[in-house]
């Protein structure tokens, strides 16, 4: 049986859709979505520029202008410049789970980075005799929590990554 061309190409189309987010080719007149709990828009296309407003998670914005890695966007509540890596081509989904707390809100607090193992995983380590692994994982959580967001920002600035390119 001969498979129609459209059907044969469908897997390739799906792969393309799945792989276009971080490398999205944003163009003026197009649309994009915020993907952070809070996205700061700037007055100029520079990380040193003053804040011009902020947008909440999964907000649709119109791309007004593209200048290198920077996009001038307008949303319902604010407009300004944003680094292209801070937006997504597809609208992100926000999950809510057992405790009813949205993922973003539960992970953006200062204590989230240093959260201990979940009780379910702690029980799991006992059932599976993974005591040494649990000690290692607790050490990893502590070490990772000790690296402050400001240090990551300073690293990016020094090595010209993200907005600092």
């Amino acid at each position, binding site marked *: 049986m001969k498979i129609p061309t459209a059907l044969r190409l469908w897997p390739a189309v799906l792969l393309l859709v799945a792989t276009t987010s971080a490398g999205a080719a944003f163009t003026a007149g197009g649309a994009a979505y915020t993907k952070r709990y809070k996205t700061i828009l700037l007055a100029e296309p520079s990380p040193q520029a003053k804040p011009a407003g902020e947008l909440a998670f999964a907000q649709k914005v119109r791309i007004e202008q593209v200048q290198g890695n920077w996009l001038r966007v307008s949303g319902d509540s604010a407009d300004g410049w944003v680094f292209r890596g801070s937006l997504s081509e597809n609208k992100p989904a926000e*999950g*809510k*789970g057992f*405790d009813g707390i949205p993922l973003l809100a539960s992970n953006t607090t200062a204590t989230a980075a240093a959260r201990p193992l979940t009780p379910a995983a702690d029980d799991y380590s006992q059932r599976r005799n993974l005591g040494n692994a649990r000690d290692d994982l607790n050490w990893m959580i502590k070490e990772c929590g000790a690296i402050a967001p400001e240090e990551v920002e300073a690293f990016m600035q020094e090595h010209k990554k993200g907005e600092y390119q």
Partner: protein
Amino acid sequence: MSTRSILVLALALSAGLSVRAFDLSGLTRALGNNSDRITKGIDTAKDIGKVAKGVAGIGPEEEKAIGDSVALEIIGKYGGLVRDEEIMRRVNLVGRSLAAFSDRPDLTWRFAVLNSDTLNGFSAPAGYVFITRGLYDLVSSDDALAGVLAHEIAHITEKHALNIVAKGDALAAATSQVVKRSGDLRALDSQLQQFDLGVGKVTKTLFETGYPPKTEFSADHLAHDLARVTGYAPGGLRGVLSELQDSGTSPDKIFSTHPPLKDRIRRLPDEPATTAAQ
């Protein structure tokens, strides 16, 4: 109090009825006049009500429980962690600079090196990324390290592992804690078995079968794009894969759960493996 009584209470509460609307003294008599068990039952019912709200998908709490448990299995299988603060700092700074521009920038991202001389990388839901010491020693430049970490980041942002886990298996993580408090050992055992089954599905994929090739190719492309937008050389990952292919190392020691290196290299653009800055 029986499990059935707990479930009746849960249904009543999740239907929106306030506990205060009940005649608690009557309820106490009806349930055997055991105030401790009633209190426990009301707590349990409230919690089950919360679980019911999350049935629409695997939420953040379930993802953390599954992710923590999968991370334990990875660490347990690959010789524990390399407890070196300098290495930890490097992989976390490079990793978090990438993750900041991924499709899940607000996850709690954590990176570490496994004490194994094999050459492989792993990820677990909720933001855990691991590479082996053998692979870490090979990736001398930040561009190469970024390529490898970005591939694992892509597995997490695309929820490749979570897609293997059934919703019921993930919810069992939360439900088991609720049932544990209720003291119903049979129900607890059932929930734990279901949770372990969910974790087992992920670890079987990670350690034995691997993800389907098209999933790995998709993660490679996302890694390439993420490295480029963050400012790392987009050819960093391809450079590592090419170096491994040319090294003559036994195939069973190199990305043994991934598609053949030549297939991955062929699908990635031939671009510079290092940035001018390095």
